[in-house]
């Protein structure tokens, strides 16, 4: 059964300069117990998508189209109070910024207890006991509950936030780059803990990162986003062996841990599209080494290319050729030259 079904979701940000289409026509399913890794360059809409699931978008962000069925009920249509009841209890977030996500004037324990008590009739003592339990699970001493955020290290704070997300055994955990603020050694430990616990309580997870190597270790499914759209969705194992989309091929080139030792890193030239502007054709076409006229005119639909493997590209049949060429530096140099020519042409 699907825990979450996102259907044709559009999210806009209304700004003074105009409307920014942060998410366009995004659809995907998340099964009970499944964890999805959401990857893509900064600005592709990962955080926006994550926040919309909790209806936590900033004031200028609007879900302009689509539905998000959580346990069969559309989150988009729910009232404020209904959404409030879902938060933490059903859907919990581990946010991007461990440093500032705890209120400086209350102890960490009080902040946990408050969350627990917002969703149950638990007494203070019962809630405190539960807080101690989750602290133990996450590897923090119970006496830390009495600490104020400023008395804790970054790693401890992030653990406390994870503990918070776990207190009520949510069905869905949304982790938005949960470790970016931490140093590498701590990052690994905490990542492993998150996964372990997620498996233990059998909750589903949306794990957001811009580092696809992390996804290969911890998620069953990967969704690659670009310019507010899904480019590819696949089983992680399949994806890392045989990616389809030219953008996915480019991403894999750009990450060291996936490449075998000795191979050189190649980055994708150019930058993501300006989502304020009207987009024509495929979102990635400007930077795609294999683009054709069709790509510039027509938006490719998300199509199945294998079992639960979806891509949005006009040329899935050419994938073998693409994979070969994408390994070559010249292929991407070609894009760089094309981009330079185009910008000269415009000027």
């Amino acid at each position, binding site marked *: 059964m699907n825990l979450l079904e996102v259907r044709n979701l559009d999210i806009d940000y209304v700004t003074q300069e105009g409307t920014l289409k942060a998410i366009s026509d995004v659809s995907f399913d998340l099964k009970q117990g499944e964890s999805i890794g959401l990857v893509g360059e900064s600005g592709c809409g990962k955080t926006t998508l994550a926040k919309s699931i909790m209806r936590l978008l900033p004031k200028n962000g609007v879900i302009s189209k689509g539905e998000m069925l959580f346990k069969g009920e559309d989150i988009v249509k729910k009232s404020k109070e209904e959404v*409030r009841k879902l938060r933490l209890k059903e859907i919990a977030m581990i946010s991007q910024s461990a440093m500032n996500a705890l*209120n400086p004037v209350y102890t960490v324990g009080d902040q946990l207890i408050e*969350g627990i008590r*917002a969703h149950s009739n638990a007494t203070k003592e019962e809630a405190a006991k539960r807080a101690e339990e989750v602290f133990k699970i996450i590897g923090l001493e119970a006496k830390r509950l009495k600490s104020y955020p400023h008395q804790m290290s970054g790693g401890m704070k992030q653990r406390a936030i994870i503990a918070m997300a776990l207190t009520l055994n949510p069905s869905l955990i949304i982790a938005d780059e949960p470790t970016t603020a931490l140093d590498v050694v701590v990052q690994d430990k905490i990542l492993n803990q998150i996964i372990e616990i997620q498996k233990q309580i059998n909750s589903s997870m949306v794990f957001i990162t811009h580092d696809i190597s992390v996804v290969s270790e911890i998620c069953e499914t990967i969704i690659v986003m670009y310019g507010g759209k899904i480019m590819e969705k696949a089983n992680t194992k399949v994806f890392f062996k045989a990616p389809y989309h030219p953008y996915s091929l480019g991403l894999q080139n750009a990450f060291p841990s996936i490449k075998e030792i000795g191979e050189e890193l190649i980055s994708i030239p150019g930058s993501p599209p300006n989502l304020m502007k009207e987009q024509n054709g495929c979102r990635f076409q400007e930077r795609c080494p294999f683009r054709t006229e069709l790509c510039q005119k027509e938006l490719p639909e998300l199509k199945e290319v294998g079992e639960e493997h979806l891509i949005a590209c006009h040329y899935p049949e050419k994938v073998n050729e693409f994979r070969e060429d994408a390994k070559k530096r010249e292929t991407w140099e070609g894009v760089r030259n094309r981009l330079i020519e185009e910008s000269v042409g415009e000027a």
Partner: protein
Amino acid sequence: MLKYIAKRVAIMLAMLMLVSTMIFFLFRAMPGDATAFIVDPSMPPEARELMAERYGLNDSKWVQYTIFMKDLVRLDFGNSFFYGRPVTDLIKERMPATLILMFSAMIIAYLIGVFGGAWMAWKRGSKLESAGVTFSLIFRSAPTFWVGLMMILVFSARLRWFPAQGMRTSGYSGDTFAEIFLTLDFLKHLILPSIVAGLYFIATPLLIMRNSMLEVLSEDYIEMANAKGLKEKTVLYKHAARNALLPVVTAGALFIGSAIGGQVLIEVVFSWPGLGREIVQAVTRHDYPLAQGAFIMISALMMFMNLVADILYAVLDPRISYK
């Protein structure tokens, strides 16, 4: 913390000595002959001389200063020239009236300011918000005495809801604190001046609260509080306002100084028998001892309030620890 407070109190005392010295010499540098006010010029010269001698006005400034400081340590400010009674007694009599009026006004200003400011930030961009800003600035910019007189005109002269001046109806007398201040009559007298003073004070807490609240509302921990599924009101008041309050407290400490100026005006307009009005009268009467005493007391009050604000800040913000 206790050590910190002790240190601050010691510094406060030293500063008070300095302030007292300055006040002493300032008054001596003022134009006008003090003897002319306390000693009737129509008296024979010998009698005048005698009086001046008795009040110590013939001694050198230095001698006067040493006596003044020595007495000060014993909290003796001498006798008022005008009333002929110990200044300490006069201050004791006038101080409660001033404090009560000032605190009522502050409570009005801070209660409305803090809650209103938080609410205005929440309702950012609405008509009510801009109305709130305008309203508070009008009362800040309008001359206090004018606002006071208008209020008297409307609420006392026209509507006859409140008495226009003083702090009790004439003929009423009481001796103990309760008899003077814990009466309905006193409350009636208190309302109008404390509203006028409150309106004058309100802009500071209201606007600082609003701005600081706007900043706090974009903090990550507010999003986190929302993500926890807390009620909107809990997020607004328990999380956002609680943090936004910190700059308001800091500003409050600085604000107390300027508040005293407003207080003097209010006391004069409403004939409020407090220390502020007494100062104005004492200065025009060249009543050095009383003016000096009152000024020193007000300085002490300001320093004390500053200390209170600092301590309050430490209580409100666990990140601050004084050593």
